[in-house]
């Protein structure tokens, strides 16, 4: 079964980004992306665990003390810049928090998964493309998934070679299609609940253009590395 949708011209651009950074495109999914994504998942779990220690009023120094490690080492971990490997996670659970794994209150699977997907997109953007100018929230990511299923969006790939007129027409089509679907989704929500007071959210061309400019390549790099079995498409 197919995984996340990948548009051909976006893929070409994404592959060029990899090559520009000295990455072997064939090896990228198995040897690079997966390792990085698993590290990101570990990082997300770690951040949630640190939030738990903070709720117990433990700062870096206290945490280091209890682990018998130097404060600077632990400070590097908790900063999120160099999160520790999984063994330190278990050490904190067992020796500092003194909890059973099943009693850990570190967020549910859905929250952790989205945090990992978002963080991975941010890292792919910075590592292989360019720092994004807007954030990736659930709404933007859902739209990104749908946008990449609209054939015209292929022409919006940065180096697609499409003329300005073609790009303009593609963006216009994407805006119309997306807003129609948002309205339809909103109408069905209204039908189900009488308490919906807000209006359907509308997405303008400038907004959509920025989302694609920031996240189109990172999304494609992400999709190139994902396997269907993970169920990123439908958990």
């Amino acid at each position, binding site marked *: 079964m*197919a*995984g996340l*949708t990948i548009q051909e011209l976006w893929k070409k651009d994404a592959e060029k980004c990899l090559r520009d950074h000295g990455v072997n495109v064939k090896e990228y999914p198995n040897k690079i992306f997966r390792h990085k994504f698993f590290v990101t998942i570990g990082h997300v779990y770690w951040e*949630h665990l*640190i*939030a738990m220690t*903070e*709720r117990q009023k433990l700062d*870096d120094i206290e945490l280091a003390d209890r682990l018998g490690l130097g404060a600077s080492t632990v*400070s590097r971990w*908790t*900063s*999120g*810049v160099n999160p520790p490997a999984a063994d330190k996670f278990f050490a904190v659970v067992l020796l500092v928090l003194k909890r059973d794994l099943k009693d850990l209150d570190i967020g549910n699977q*859905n929250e952790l998964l*989205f945090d990992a997907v978002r963080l991975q997109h*941010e890292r792919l953007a*910075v590592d292989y493309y*360019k*720092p*994004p*100018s*807007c*954030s990736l*929230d*659930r*709404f933007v*990511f*859902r739209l990104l*998934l*749908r946008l990449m*299923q*609209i*054939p015209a969006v292929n022409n*919006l790939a*940065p180096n697609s070679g499409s003329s*300005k007129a073609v*790009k*303009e027409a593609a*963006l*216009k*089509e994407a*805006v*119309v*299609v997306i*807003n129609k*679907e948002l309205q339809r*989704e909103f109408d069905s929500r209204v039908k189900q609940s009488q308490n919906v007071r*807000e*209006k359907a*959210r509308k997405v*303008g*061309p*400038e907004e959509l*253009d*920025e989302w694609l*400019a920031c996240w189109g390549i990172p999304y494609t790099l992400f999709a190139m590395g994902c396997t269907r079995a993970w169920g990123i*498409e*439908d*958990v």
Partner: protein
Amino acid sequence: MSKEIANHILDPETLAKMNAEFLAGEYDKLDFPEIPALDPASDPFERNFEWLNEPQGAKTESNLSLSRKRPEGGWSKEAGRVVRQLALGGSLAGSNDSQIFRKWVEEGFFALCLAAGAKGEEALMVVRSTEKSSDDRVEFLSRWLATQPQFKQRTEEERLTVAIAAVEHFSNSPP
């Protein structure tokens, strides 16, 4: 995020023209044939993407409330994440989120207010005020942040998070 200039595919003039047409309702008259999902199994509008649903209790952008549940780790940690993203790869690396926020609110935010002239000074005065209610201060600051280039691209929820954390910070450490 780290850049004040937004990334775009099309040029600013074309986007401005398209945006004006969109706001004038011209796009409402356009109709494109239904586009089926290339892979129906991964159509986010047809399938139930449980993991992409907003967490229970979370507010949507159009339904924000100042009385949101305190996030795990506190507001400063949550706001620190936003500030960290604004300074992606910058000099703030190496601190935890709460420390980053504290540093930013005491230095970066201060500089931002001063650079913004009278309006910025007013924002600083309001956020440190002991006479106004916390909700009023948060609401004022959140609205003011929305006018600042660094924060324009952030979601309303993120601006609100930063505003709540800033008000909390100044309430706990009055001048």
